[in-house]
């Protein structure tokens, strides 16, 4: 039991943050989504979402592609293989420990 609890210390702190976990969980359920969709769906503010996406991108958990659709910039986000692995591991650790 204590070994399982101790595994909580291994939790990835980048996706443990609720806002980022929400983004990663959403991206795990779709192929790709843009900034506006993530903002509408998560209810995060523009600045908050932008900061979380940058952190996830820097960690290599999501891939961000900046493009245009007409005059509107389109920021497409998708979960990388590394992001999927980290999320799976996060789920396993939480399930085992709690």
């Amino acid at each position, binding site marked *: 039991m204590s070994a399982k609890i101790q595994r909580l210390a291994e939790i990835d702190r980048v996706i443990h943050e609720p806002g980022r976990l*929400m983004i*990663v*969980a959403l991206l795990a*359920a*779709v192929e790709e989504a843009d900034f506006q969709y993530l903002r509408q769906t998560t209810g995060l503010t523009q600045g908050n979402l*932008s900061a979380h996406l940058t952190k996830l991108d820097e960690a290599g958990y999501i891939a961000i592609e900046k493009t245009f659709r007409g005059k509107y910039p389109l920021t497409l986000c998708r979960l990388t293989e590394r992001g999927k692995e980290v999320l799976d591991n996060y789920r396993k650790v939480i399930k085992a420990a709690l």
Partner: protein
Amino acid sequence: MNETSSRLFEESSERIAGRLMQKAHNQDGLPEIAIGVVFLALAVVCWLPTAVQPRSPAYVAAICGQALLIPILCLRLPWAIKTVRRKFLIEREGYVESRPANRKYVAIVIAIAIAFGIAGVFAAFRGSFPPASWVLGATGIGGGVLAAIAGKLPRFITGGAVMAVTGLVLAFSAVSLATGFAILYGLMGALSLLSGCVVFLHFLHFMRLPAEPGE
């Protein structure tokens, strides 16, 4: 955000993602409008053969409609919703590319449809259809439960309850199967269309275009 944060510790990330996506999918009311159109079309093709002379052009059109219109609508409406969203609403609600449908669930749905089809053919050969009241009651309750489970949102649960109650009321009344189906589908179609239009207008009014598009 705080509410969402606390929920994250109570629910699994998959359930949260599913709930948030379901909410986002229905935020513009287009799926309800599409369901309303399908139900109203169903009501018309159920009612028309009872109201016109057999073998008249309208009768033939109704029978063809029963066979072709509904599958075509069911196949093309998701595409129509996607097109409308991509063309007119993307700046308001954002862009999302869903994953292809889970093959396991698709196979289960197809297997259930085939089982019902075989049961229908078998019943037709034996001439032992269940009474109209049973079929109407079961359709109302089954459809209502399905709407509540699939929709999850309060308005879908309310719609499901209305469908179940309507099915039960029709089961205890002396209406024929075709008339019962026409009333059940017509009522559900009108309700769904009305609710979808209200949600759509609300969405257009409150989800204004971002002043600084994108980020």
